[in-house]
């Protein structure tokens, strides 16, 4: 028991769900709370097999509302707790997430998107972007990493715990059913062996000492009586969110300097986008590539900087304009020559079709 789950660097070939379970172990997650849903089930399957070996815990709850609120409970108790869900599960999770936003609870979750709306399909989509970035009755105080590879699933789930516990905003790894179910190689490692400091979890309740005497009692709430009281409470949260942005925002760009057209995409689609860009470059087309990794906060300045160099874009997403909305907001008041879009809700992209599209229009 409780040897380090991963020692040394280890190249493995596994499903994304398995990689996530290992990443949570490596990040020293203490407990997972969850409710089954495809395509994230195997995160739970692996976790329930691995957790007892390393002194970690698991609770299967009665629904996603309970999964969310028990996870919050675990965090309040000072444990690194996390959950995972998808599709209609993510919809239900908006309720606990909204509480986490208000109470600054470092909730960590993997969201493996599936088709939408409603129950739809169980496998692949990018249709939970709206909801994961800005869902609930609030202002989107969240950090959302959209991953493209198993390596990133692993890296960013570990990073999510640090982001969440440093800034105290709910933090998500947003992937999808393809990433959940497919096998591909990645390198697993212990983050601390790589010199990455894992932020310690600290309890919100149950600290030592007699409350009201040795220390103030924790009186945590998410409800306020009058409008002004709420305003006073949430403005500082917003300011801290804004102040965090530059520290957490992440993106990837390639070959943008001389590009005549830039492919915009995120998540698994960006694999096709990058491959298409590379092949088109080989053929002599001046194609660039830009991919937001954090969808929230969005790499706004970064995209604007790129748009100053080239303002022809081809945007590809497996949804009907959810990334496009973020892009348009980011490029507000930036002159754009062309923003072509290919929307394929729930359906994947191949490099070939992007190549065809660009060759066709040139």
């Amino acid at each position, binding site marked *: 028991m409780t040897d380090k789950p991963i020692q040394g660097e280890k190249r493995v070939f596994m499903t994304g769900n398995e990689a996530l379970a290992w990443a949570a172990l490596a990040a020293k997650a*203490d*407990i997972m*709370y969850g409710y089954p849903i495809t395509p994230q089930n195997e995160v739970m399957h692996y976790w329930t097999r691995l957790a007892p070996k390393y002194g970690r*815990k698991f*609770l299967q*709850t*009665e*629904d996603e*509302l*309970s999964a*969310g*609120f*028990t*996870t*919050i*409970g*675990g*965090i*309040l*108790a*000072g*444990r690194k*707790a996390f959950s995972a869900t998808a599709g209609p599960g993510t919809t239900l999770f908006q*309720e*606990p997430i909204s*509480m986490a936003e208000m109470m600054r609870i470092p909730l960590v979750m993997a969201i493996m998107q599936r088709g939408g709306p409603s129950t739809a399909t169980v496998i692949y989509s990018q249709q939970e972007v709206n909801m994961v970035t800005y869902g609930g009755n609030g202002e989107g105080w969240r950090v959302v990493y959209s991953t493209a590879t198993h390596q990133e699933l692993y890296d960013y789930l570990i990073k999510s715990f640090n982001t969440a516990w440093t800034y105290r905003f709910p933090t998500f790894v947003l992937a999808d059913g393809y990433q959940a179910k497919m096998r591909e190689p990645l390198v697993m490692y212990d983050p601390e062996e790589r010199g990455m400091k894992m932020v310690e979890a600290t*309890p*919100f*309740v*149950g*600290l030592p*000492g*007699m*409350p*009201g*005497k040795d220390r103030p*009692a*924790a*009186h*945590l*709430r*998410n*409800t306020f009586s009058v409008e002004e009281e709420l305003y006073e409470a949430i403005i500082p949260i917003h300011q801290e969110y804004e102040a965090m942005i530059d520290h957490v925002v992440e993106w990837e760009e390639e070959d943008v300097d001389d590009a005549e057209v830039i492919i915009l995409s995120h998540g698994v689609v960006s694999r096709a986008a990058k491959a298409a860009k590379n092949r088109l470059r080989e053929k002599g087309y001046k194609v660039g590539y830009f991919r937001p990794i954090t969808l929230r906060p969005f790499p706004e300045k970064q995209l604007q900087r790129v748009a100053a160099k080239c303002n022809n874009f081809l945007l590809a997403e497996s949804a009907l304009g959810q990334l496009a909305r973020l892009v348009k907001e980011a490029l507000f008041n930036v002159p754009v020559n062309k923003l072509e879009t290919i929307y394929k809700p729930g359906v994947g992209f191949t490099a070939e079709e992007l190549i065809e599209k660009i060759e066709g229009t040139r």
Partner: protein
Amino acid sequence: MVNNLAMPKSWNADTKPHKFCPGCGHGITLKILGEIIDELEIQDRLVFGVDIGCSLLAWDFFNVDTVQTHHGRTNPVMVGIKRANPELLCIAYMGDGGGYAIGSQHLVNSAFRNEKIMAIVINNCNYGMTGGQMAPTTLPGQKTETSPYGRDPETMGSPTLGPEMVAAIAPAGAYVARASIANIRQLKRFLKKAVENQIAGNGFSFVEVLSSCPTNWRTNAKQTWDYVEKEMSKYFKTGEFRTPDEKKEA
């Protein structure tokens, strides 16, 4: 001169007078609970969870770590805490709406899982905080804002019998009782046994409290007592429904 000797030590005097209405049974129950916290000396390892509903007004009631959660979600938050740190004692405190309507899946499943927490449901026959709508516990014939012509069991359902339900499903080790503000000694006994059941780690502990809501009942003191003692207790029987040792008190 100072007078707060009647207050349990675990009360947070800074927030008194508390936010509950005059004559509210929440106040009585929380006084008894405060006394129990004092007597069992658990103030420093207790986490108190309050729901949405008038229970939220207790978010800073005690000098006890307190978490105010969403409507119906106090149970899972407390379960989450307990699971993560079993050293802590967790009390989920909620109204009949939070416990029996929007949060009923959590109550039922906490019971089946025999979660080692304690849950208290304040039965005041209505949704107090939102201004007196029908609750799962509203009595047949009772007029509320959403049953203005009286609750008709045929179309609006019969009052939820929480302890009866929980007793029917909880595994061994559970403690299940219904008490009333009309019998304060019994109320204290039951609440205390429930807390002790959690301390012993036997299983789920559940107490429903028949309580008053003079504001929404629009009752004066006499009518308030009458309602609790006569109307409510006709339908809702007090007593122990499950004890870990199965010796029950009526």
